[in-house]
């Protein structure tokens, strides 16, 4: 396959298309996934290829959608349940955390739940407090769930394809501000295997650890830092479960400094977990305390000016890193 220009949205769509073509057990179920083509257009026109039997439009009943997907997955189907907004996790955490995540364990390993919950989160579209959150910490805090958060179109494709081969429930959180982002990529091979982080930009002075849309915020900051003579390394975690601390720790041991960047809010969050682990694993190598740059501990406001102020922007990263390096 040659390199092609593709959006994050179309890469996801391609992944579903390819998975459905290769595997008859893959069915897509959710609100507006069929005729409408998905609220963000990810399943657009798939119904023409696979019909209403495999692109299943449901009533607005998130707990029953996720629950039905759990049941279908227990029989060996691979449902892709679409949760239109990650904010709706509040409606379905019972089925995810108490059912999907526990079934393998509490039934002694006799059965798994090979399902994918596709959803999207984050800011960038003035969608307001109930449609803009970054709730990955809720998922990450639940043993038994896999968690993927792709930043690039290539990862959107490959991580989703891989998720649809796994024997366990995967929560797949896309970013609403990335759907239209185009990149030139070759979908023939992934940048790294599932579960492995990747270094998006190499550098020797500081490690910026991040994922999803914040990868691009961090890369922007790293480019600006380079102009000031600071070489920042940017690590894209790609999946939060599994969490590839090996790549992170190796980098931090080289650079001696770590900044964790997340769109999800600061307190009790993913950034705290990453900072703690870096502290535990790299203490002797650290020149400075690990710094967290995360979303503000506020509901996400609608006003674009306020919304962008609620999440990390490149200038904050730049100034934190400069302060760290005293330059």
């Amino acid at each position, binding site marked *: 396959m040659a390199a092609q220009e593709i959006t994050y949205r179309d890469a996801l769509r391609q992944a579903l298309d390819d998975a459905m073509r290769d595997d008859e057990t893959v069915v897509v179920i959710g609100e507006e996934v069929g005729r409408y083509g998905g609220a963000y257009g990810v399943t657009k026109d798939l119904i023409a290829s696979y019909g209403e039997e495999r692109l299943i439009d449901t009533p607005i009943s998130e707990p029953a959608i996720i*629950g039905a997907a759990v049941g279908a997955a227990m*029989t060996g189907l691979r449902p892709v349940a679409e949760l239109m907004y990650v904010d709706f996790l509040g409606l379905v955490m019972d089925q995810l955390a*108490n059912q999907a995540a526990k079934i393998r364990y509490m*039934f*002694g*390993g006799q059965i798994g739940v090979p399902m994918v919950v596709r959803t999207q989160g984050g800011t960038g579209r003035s969608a307001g407090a109930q449609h803009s959150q970054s709730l990955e910490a809720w998922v990450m805090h639940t043993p038994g769930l896999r968690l993927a958060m792709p930043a690039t179109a290539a990862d959107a494709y490959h991580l989703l394809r891989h998720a649809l081969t796994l*024997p366990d429930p995967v929560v797949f959180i896309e970013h609403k501000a990335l759907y239209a982002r185009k990149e030139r990529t070759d979908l023939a091979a992934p940048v790294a295997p599932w579960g*492995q982080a990747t270094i998006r930009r190499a550098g020797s002075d500081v490690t910026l650890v991040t994922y999803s849309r914040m990868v691009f915020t961090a890369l922007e900051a790293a480019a600006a830092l380079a102009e000031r003579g600071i070489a920042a390394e940017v690590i894209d975690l790609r999946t939060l479960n599994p969490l590839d601390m090996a790549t992170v720790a190796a980098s931090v041991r080289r650079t001696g400094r770590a900044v964790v960047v997340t769109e999800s809010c600061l307190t009790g969050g993913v950034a705290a977990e990453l900072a703690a682990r870096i502290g535990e694993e790299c203490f002797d190598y650290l020149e400075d305390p690990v710094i967290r740059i995360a979303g503000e501990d506020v509901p996400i406001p609608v006003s674009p000016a306020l919304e962008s102020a609620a999440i990390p922007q490149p200038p904050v990263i730049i100034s934190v890193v400069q302060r760290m390096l005293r330059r």
Partner: protein
Amino acid sequence: MVQAGKSERGAKTARNDATVTAEKPQAVAGLGRAALLRAYHDMVLIRRFEERAGQLYGMGLIGGFCHLYIGQEAVVVGVQMALQDGDQVITSYRDHGHMLAAGMDPRGVMAELTGRRDGYSHGKGGSMHMFSREKNFFGGHGIVGAQVSIGTGLAFANRYRGNDRVSVTYFGEGASSQGQVYESFNIAALMKLPVLYVIENNKYGMGTSVDRSSASHDLSQNGAPWGIPGAQVDGMDVEAVQAAAAAAVAHCRAGRGPYLLEMKTYRYRGHSMSDPAKYRTREEVQKMRTERDCIEHARQHLLALGAAEAELKAIEEAVKTQIQEAADFAQASPEPDPAELWTDVLASDVAASDVVAGA
């Protein structure tokens, strides 16, 4: 007795008569002697199993939650008799009877109650959480009502695969107040999924009587707005249960969509082992036990059908031996290996913590 009248009235209020014509449950013809003897065996097996589980709990050999099924045996035994191989069963946490009726090994169930290595879930599930692929038993779920959505998903998978299996999804009258039950009804009716919903109305959700928890007084009609036909069944009569279930399962298997049966039943013991059941009178329980007991009812019918006392005695003796074996097995089985703590969280071979350690 199956009470068909009400369900038909309810069904007619639904918007599409074509989809809601209730099966007219047959007058109970009876199982016949041979089948009733099997039912008798299964009910006695469950009763004795639960009595022994209660004893082991009292001795401290079973910890945690333990919800006994005593009193309700006719429900699962009668429904199970209406099923075919391949039909699936899913239920809540009062699940021992469902597992035994499905043919799961009493030794493995009891060993799970004692939390031992040879239990169905190797000690990690306990009383509420067991599973058997072989017997198509899908658990054993602890969150009230959550299994209703999952059971609906089992039916979805059956329809998707085009097989003729039916998913039997049990829940209590307490769970019938949960929202996702009605989300599931809507989806099952829309998609005409082959799911038999069985409400086991034992009158009390923990300590709250159904009169105090449900504004609906005929739970069999709770699916009526979605055109799901329903019937109330005397859940203390295994033959009535079998007949109603057979008609309902036939409806589901024929591709006519979901069906709802409300089993009017009664649990003799508390909600769980820690429940002294002070919310009802001793007389109420005693009256059910003496006048409505499902095992005694089957026994009397068997004798009337010409079964010999010795035949019934032989069944009881065989069950006694089986239960003793299960209890011995459950106490002899070793505790789980401590390393099992970290297994089966996820299937993959990534480190159990799912963190690739950097050390």
